[in-house]
């Protein structure tokens, strides 16, 4: 889309958002772009009245990044690649995992694991879903090898393969607070080994029954932020 189209689209969206504000059309009938503009208009109205609402809207605009100029993620041709699909808020709205691991370091570590096994890594950002299994599957489908890794900004990860059911997986790491850098490296290594068709011993399962009481509220807040950062029209872009 060239910049003129973009401009026209934005003007239309602003007009529609204006109409909604004047109650001329219903809010649920408008597209996401207009809704975004409507919400930003709406929150400035309400700043003095609803503190909680403005908090929500403020966060929404803060975590929303414009990806329209980014490069759409390509279907890889390299049979040696593992595609890592990161969450919508990854390194933008959210910089650290739920336990405070730097997301840049996390990617570097997974990459190192993949490269250690002689395979190559490519990172994409998934913007049409925040569900880790669907993210992993999307990454796998973009991957030249058919093996992908999905990782949410809070740290939850999955190793996926392109021909599996979405909610199935090769390996799932569902308890983000327990995932260490060592495990992230191991995830990279194992993904690469699946590419090579080796007999893979899955990463040893870790479990802590007190993770939920300690972290579930934080997990929800992080996931809300990730979901707010989605941009379903752009779907998936190349990422660093």
């Amino acid at each position, binding site marked *: 889309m060239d910049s003129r189209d973009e401009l026209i689209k934005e003007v239309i969206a602003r007009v529609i958002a204006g109409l909604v504000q004047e109650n001329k059309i219903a809010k649920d009938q408008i597209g996401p772009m207009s809704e975004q503009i409507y919400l930003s208009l709406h929150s400035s109205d309400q700043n003095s009245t609803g503190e909680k*609402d403005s908090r929500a809207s403020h966060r929404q605009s803060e975590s929303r990044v414009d990806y329209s100029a980014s490069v759409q993620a390509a279907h890889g041709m390299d049979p040696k690649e593992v595609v890592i699909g990161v969450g919508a808020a990854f390194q933008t709205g959210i910089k650290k995992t739920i336990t405070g691991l730097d997301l840049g370091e996390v990617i570097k570590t997974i990459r190192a694991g993949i490269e250690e096994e002689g395979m190559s890594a490519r990172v994409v950002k998934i913007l049409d879903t925040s*569900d880790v299994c*669907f993210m992993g599957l999307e990454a796998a489908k973009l991957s030249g090898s058919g093996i992908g890794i999905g990782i949410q900004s809070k740290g939850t990860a999955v190793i996926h393969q392109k021909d599996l*059911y979405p909610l199935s997986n090769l390996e799932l790491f*569902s308890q983000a607070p327990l995932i260490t850098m060592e495990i992230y490296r191991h995830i990279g290594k194992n993904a690469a080994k699946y590419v090579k068709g080796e007999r893979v011993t899955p990463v040893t399962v870790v479990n802590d029954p007190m*993770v939920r*009481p300690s*972290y*579930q509220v934080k997990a929800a807040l992080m*996931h809300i932020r990730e979901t707010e950062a989605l941009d379903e029209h752009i779907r998936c872009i190349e990422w660093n």
Partner: protein
Amino acid sequence: MKRSKRFEKLENRPVNQDGFIAEWPEKGFIAMHSPYDPVPSLKIVNNEIIEMDGTPREQFDFIDRFIADYVIRLDRAEVSMSIPSVEIAHKIVDINISRAEILEICSGITPAKMAEIINQLNVVELMMAMQKMRARKVPGNQAHITNMKDDPVQIAADAAEGALRGFSEEETTMGVARYAPFSAMALLIGSQAGRRGILTQCSSEEATELELGIRGLTTYAETLSVYGTEKVFIDGDDTPYSKAFLNAAYASRGLKVRFTSGSGSEVLMGNAEKKSMLYLECRCLFVTKGAGAQGTQNGSVSCIGITSSVPAGLREVIGENVVATLLGLECCSSNDQSFSHSDMRRTARTMLQFFPGTDFIFSGYAAEDNYDNLFAGSNFDANDFDDYNVIQRDMQVDGGLRPVSEEETIAVRQKAAKAVQAVFRQLGLSEVTDEQVEAVVYAHGSKETLNRDVPADLSAVEDMMKRGITGIDVVRALAETGFEDIAESILNMLKQRIIGDYLQTAAILDEDFHVLSGVNTPNDYRGPGTGYRVSGKRWEEIKSIPHLIDPEKF
């Protein structure tokens, strides 16, 4: 500020490690009633609902539409909706009004009306409601049987012990998802080695779970998830219609099914649409009813950390359990997930289901140490067995478990582990050594067992699935290796699939494979002196805990 020693001490109490958050309705962090919840309403024209809970038909999302078209009884709706919610709430706790009459009223109400009714009831009234509205006369209990190594031998041994301890259903899941067929098979064998008639299931990806069921490696299914907002449904690649089809697929093969839902999931998935957890869960349960499921596993379930973080969260949990019963559904009432560091708080949470009794008080009591519980920890675990038995005895309440002796427990663990070893050999699967059997029989958990050769197991799993191994092959392998009694039990479980009686609401089986359900043994509670009372043989069993002081030897 100079610190108070008392406040310092209190800060370090376990409860203060739990997560709490103030109400925030815009993001769904609100338990019972959100200012954005709809006001109950219903308009019917030409036998079609044209408005429900303030939304006109043309603005229905697919959940509204499904509920309007398949759940609410139009012949009842006008009368039911005209009764004030507080009056319906009165009838629910009135011992002079029968369960059947309440079910009739509730068959004609909308989800918002249901939420409004529940909002009238405090926790004691909700327990009274549960005591009367539970489907089956005798309460039951379900176990989680899992371990960190996905070790099938340990699954079998723990399943046998769990069955001996009284669980009517046992559920497993995996750390490594691809182990599912082994886990299902080991659970099937182990459960029957402990006590005949135990229902088993393997929680896994839906298509895999269905296939294991069709093959006769499981005898019920539970992981059919429904959600309270359209967006969360779509994120899971699902609709109420697809869930109804999946339910029918199970039913066509004679497998018992219950759905799963629970408050907090929409918040956790980031799409609660500003509605209260209770209202969204009402929508889930109406969908469950409309899809033809006999029952539900609900009570926040795996999102209990969210629901319990807000004010009145645990009142909401018993509230949503009661909603299930008001719709005539079997209620398998959660208590299956750790949510608190505080022993007081986790016990208090469970008493709301334990005292009135539900069809299954836990939808997964960890029958292993919680470190081995792959549902990320249950609210009670194997370390709590004796506490639980004592509480049953203290209160004269039937929580579904019983005291057992060490000797009989070791014996059933041994039998189960050896049976799995024999079946693996007979079917040419991966090796189970005598040392492994020995370690598992006497172990408390997987930290004391031997490691499996995981790649070998996984390729054997693949081979087993390719060869089309079914429940009948397991029966044959057991019969050929000297385990005729377990073989006969599993064959009897498979026969249930053809008889079909255990598809009725809230069905469990006794040791002679007789169905006990809400249909042939319905809850007939009508106040003091009626309904299920702990007495006779069962009371003697509950009374006989170990470690009693013997006055003769004192």
